[in-house]
């Protein structure tokens, strides 16, 4: 892809523990084009957050070992010295975290947080930074922003705080916004508002967005392309419409089927993926999803690589053509 903004290849994150090394992210590769929204989906512990944190070297654990390359506009972030990486963080790549209740320093006013972000990257006066903060708060839909700019985080609700966090992330017009479960801690109506806000801001600010989530609904709302992760590896990758209409990997089937449907025939029991997510210590040599897969066969003892025709790739040994039938058959 010629205009790739972010190009991650063979990212590997390993933690040293008493029980031996634990691989949280295992050879992850993907690209994000400018202005594009990539949804990364997977269960808890599939390595989504860790991979995003490691891109900006935000993992402070001294036992973590990160390898691979993360090219952002042609520069390898993993090789950059901290000083230069700091200039990129917040200005070119901004990040939104899951829990807005704890994401802001409790003793400072929300305007202060936004102004701090602006003044960390631009030479502007306090006055100007504050005015920008008011504008941003208005943009993310905080009512009465001139007054609320002087409120403390604890005076906001969860959804409002997430808006503040988003306003902060957008303060320097980043070209890439990484949102780590931005709606998970919010209630459903607030989720919809925040997603709507992110979609709108993408249009006005033109940022590319990487959304990490375990919620297929969020992906279908906002993403252009989807990356499904399991056990630290990508198991399926492709355009959203393809992945949703013609999912190829049994794990993706499970994810899609476990979303409750409001319309259509009522299912007696919501299908769940049997078993528990692969633990980090279950060092699998084969397909990491195999222990939970109903279609497991001898080939699964070897590790499948991402492959496929065109832009829709998957890592599964099942024959490509027979899969829709196999999917129907498993939960008939």
């Amino acid at each position, binding site marked *: 892809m010629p205009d790739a903004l972010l190009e991650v290849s063979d990212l590997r994150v390993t933690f040293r523990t008493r029980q031996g090394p634990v691989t949280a992210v295992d050879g992850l590769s993907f690209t994000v084009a400018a202005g594009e929204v990539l949804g990364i989906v997977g269960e808890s512990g599939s390595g989504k957050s860790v991979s995003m944190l490691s891109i900006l070297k*935000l993992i402070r654990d001294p036992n973590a070992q990160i390898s691979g390359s993360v090219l952002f506009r042609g520069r390898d972030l993993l090789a950059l010295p*901290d000083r230069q990486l700091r*200039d990129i963080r*917040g200005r070119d790549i*901004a990040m939104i975290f899951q*829990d807005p209740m*704890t994401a802001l320093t409790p*003793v400072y006013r929300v305007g202060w947080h936004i102004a701090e972000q602006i003044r960390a990257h631009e030479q502007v006066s306090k006055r100007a930074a504050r005015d920008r903060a008011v504008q941003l708060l208005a943009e993310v839909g905080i009512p009465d922003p001139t007054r609320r700019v002087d409120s*403390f985080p604890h005076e906001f609700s969860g959804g409002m705080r997430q808006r503040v966090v988003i306003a*902060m992330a957008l303060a320097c017009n980043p070209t890439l916004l990484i949102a780590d479960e931005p709606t998970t801690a919010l209630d459903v109506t607030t989720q919809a508002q925040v997603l709507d806000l992110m979609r709108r801001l993408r249009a006005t600010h033109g940022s590319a967005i990487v959304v990490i989530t375990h919620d297929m609904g969020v992906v279908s709302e906002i993403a252009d392309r989807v990356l499904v992760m399991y056990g630290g590896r990508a198991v399926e990758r492709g355009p959203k419409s393809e992945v949703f209409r013609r999912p190829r990997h049994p794990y993706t089937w499970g994810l899609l089927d476990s979303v409750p449907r409001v319309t259509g025939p009522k299912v007696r029991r919501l299908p769940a993926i049997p078993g528990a997510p692969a633990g980090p210590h279950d060092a699998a040599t084969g397909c990491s999803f195999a222990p939970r897969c109903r279609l497991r066969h001898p080939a699964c003892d070897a590790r499948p690589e991402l492959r496929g025709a065109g832009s829709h790739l998957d890592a599964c040994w099942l024959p490509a053509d027979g899969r829709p039938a196999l999917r129907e058959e498993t939960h008939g």
Partner: protein
Amino acid sequence: MLLFAVRRFGAAILVLFAISVLVFLIFFATPGVDPAARIAGRNADPATLAQVRHSFGLDRPLPIRYALMMRHLFISRDLESFVNRGAKVVPQIIQAAPITLSLVLGAAVIWMLLAVLMGTLAARLRGTLVDPLIMLAGVVGISLPVYWLGEVVNLITQNRLHDGLFSWVPPLGYVGFTEDPGQWALHLLFPWLTLAVLYAGIYARVLRAELVANLNEDYVRTARAKGISERRILLRHALRCSLIPVVSLFGLDFGALVGGAALLTEVVFGLPGVGKLTYDALQNVDLPMIMATVLYAAFFVVLANAAVDVVYARLDPRARHA
């Protein structure tokens, strides 16, 4: 914020009133004890007893006795110590208070500076050898008893090395700040350091633990993602939040020390402060003096706590509406 301060000090006044009533009741209404005999001291003659009874209104109802007592303490300030042959109690306390205040204030400044420095440095250099070394120094400071450390300091500065290295150290005792600020500081320097060593150790450890916990908080990760420098994250974000519990600890310690808990330091360095006064009064069972010093101590504990609450609210906006 101002409203909070006013409310907080209003509450403090109520607490002080309650304490004064409680202290009064303990001294004058404990069943089976004749307060006159206690106040007059051991082997007092009947004339003194009668005088005490009259002076404290012991033949009148309790509320009047309370009012009389408070008048003796705060208005006429002529509460007499009978054990000590009629010495006035209140002027003694007024004389001793600045000495204790000087000692504790100076020590507090030193220990807070030291603690912030040590705690922050240790948290910043976690994982290196510096951290455990600083914490070890803290434990040593905590483990040294003040009376021992004070005596050793005196031995060195007043005796062994007094002709050489420490010839500038003045003899033990106290010089008022208004008389000569330079001599005031010089006389108090070693008492300050001695008292500060213990608290610096405790506070450095508390602060380090708080900092380490705060540096793992989500907001620190947010700040890093914003591109804020590590130094600013440590000082403006983590340290600021870590100071909140330290300040409440400080309020308790400061109040107790001004109230007389600095006794050992005062005795070792020959400072005639409130701790020393209380100690002597207890030795002689000098009831009026004990009562006055107890009230004085309560006054400072309550006042220090109110002041700390106001500072606390300044530091932590969440506390302002509580």
